[in-house]
């Protein structure tokens, strides 16, 4: 191929331009891909708990972000089954598997609330106040309705006008104490919330 001087300069200019573009990043990328997703629980705080739904009582691990440093507000970012728990060995049903959304639900009950008689509004109150009110209501009801003896004059010590609903995810020990407290008051209507 014969080129004159002008054509030679043109070829050189085109070559320079192409290589410059390639160097600027217009060239095809290298055959290299970074890891697409990083394991999101690598340095989270793990907290064991029991699933609050049914009476099976599956073990959970709640993973929260922040490494317990003073200035960090921990936030639960993931919940999954506890592989070491003898009940479920890591498995969870669809309700248990979705507990993260239960924890962060906008409508989740976080503080005691009371709806006064005749009112249609829920009012927040403190835990101490709530427990005091419950005790007062229980005492008033028990004083008014406690049955010491039946028609035959036999001692029965029944309190039928109040019931007690306990949690299903309690431990054996908590269940024993609950039973002692409730039965010693004379309450017969006693169940636990096992089928939510």
């Amino acid at each position, binding site marked *: 191929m014969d080129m004159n001087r002008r054509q030679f300069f043109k070829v050189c200019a085109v070559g320079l331009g192409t290589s410059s573009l390639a160097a600027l990043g217009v060239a095809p990328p290298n055959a290299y891909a970074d890891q697409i997703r990083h*394991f999101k629980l690598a340095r989270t705080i793990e907290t064991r708990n029991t699933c609050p739904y049914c009476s099976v009582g599956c073990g959970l691990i709640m993973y929260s972000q922040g490494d317990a440093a003073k200035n960090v507000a921990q936030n639960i970012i*993931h919940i999954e089954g506890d*592989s070491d728990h003898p009940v479920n060995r890591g498995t969870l049903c669809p309700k248990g598997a979705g507990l*993260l959304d239960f924890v962060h639900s906008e409508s989740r009950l976080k503080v005691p609330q009371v709806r006064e008689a005749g009112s249609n509004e829920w009012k927040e109150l403190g835990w101490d106040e709530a427990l005091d009110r419950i005790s007062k209501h229980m005492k008033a009801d028990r004083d008014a309705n406690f049955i010491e003896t039946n028609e035959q004059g036999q001692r029965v010590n029944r309190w039928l006008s109040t019931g007690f609903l306990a949690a299903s995810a309690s431990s054996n020990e908590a269940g024993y104490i609950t039973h002692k407290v409730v039965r010693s008051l004379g309450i017969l209507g006693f169940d636990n919330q096992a089928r939510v």
Partner: protein
Amino acid sequence: MATQDIIARSATTTHSPSIRQIDEVAKLIDVSKCIGCKACQVACSEWNDLRDEVGHNHGTYESPADLSADSWTLMRFAEHEDEAGKLEWLIRKDGCMHCAEPGCLTACPSPGAIVQYANGIVDFNQDHCIGCGYCITGCPFDVPRISKKDNKAYKCSLCSDRVGVGQEPACVKTCPTGAIVFGSKEDMKDHAAERIVDLKSRGYENAGLYDPPGVGGTHVMYVLHHADKPALYSGLPADPSIDPMVHVWKGVAKPLGLLAMGATALIGFFHYLRVGRNVVEEDEPGAVGDAAVHKVDPAVHEFDPKAPR
């Protein structure tokens, strides 16, 4: 997983590093043990931080109605009545099968948007995805979906981030009945063989393993009670294979097309050098410009204000 574990990359002709020997993994879904509780669906969305929009009831137990960019796995419920009139409820966990010869990766035109790891996981890298949807065309199981939010393709990753640190996928961990199990591909085949013996002893003569050779085998396998009729399970293909047109376009037409483009540019370049620009020679020196316009009706008189009168 390390980048050295990537054995195939979409739209890339250079070889990937491939000296590391790691075991192939597999997820085995025992359809006969599944109760359709959908814990796997919930665990999937929790792990992958996906929240699909709450849809509508379409009169079936399937919820949502189909796979989407925000729902990477889905229980499909099929009612089947056999010859004796016995009703069978066939529930299949649908999702990516992680084929050994992935049609999506073959069809993908964007370098690195789809990668295959040495352990068998086929993963989408949305950073490189251009949203063309060819992976859907290439997939024999109709699994990938394009997101309406970012126009990129999404599907099950077999929890590559969990498997990469030695954990099992989220759906496997949560499954309460043990219908989904995970391990090396060899172990899963052994486990499936045991299950098939059990199912045959219970009267399911055609029980078998679904590991279709048309796509080189899969890293998500099913134990089916009716392995002779996979279509009963909400249209599971009996002999899936990559659409031959994908091979035509990517195997034959693409290199030819690139060759034609390159040749055109090269020929143009040398033509320019040798022949130069296409200069129109003037035929007659007098007829400058578009003479046709000036050949007007002789009745029209030209008026030139500068002309001497």
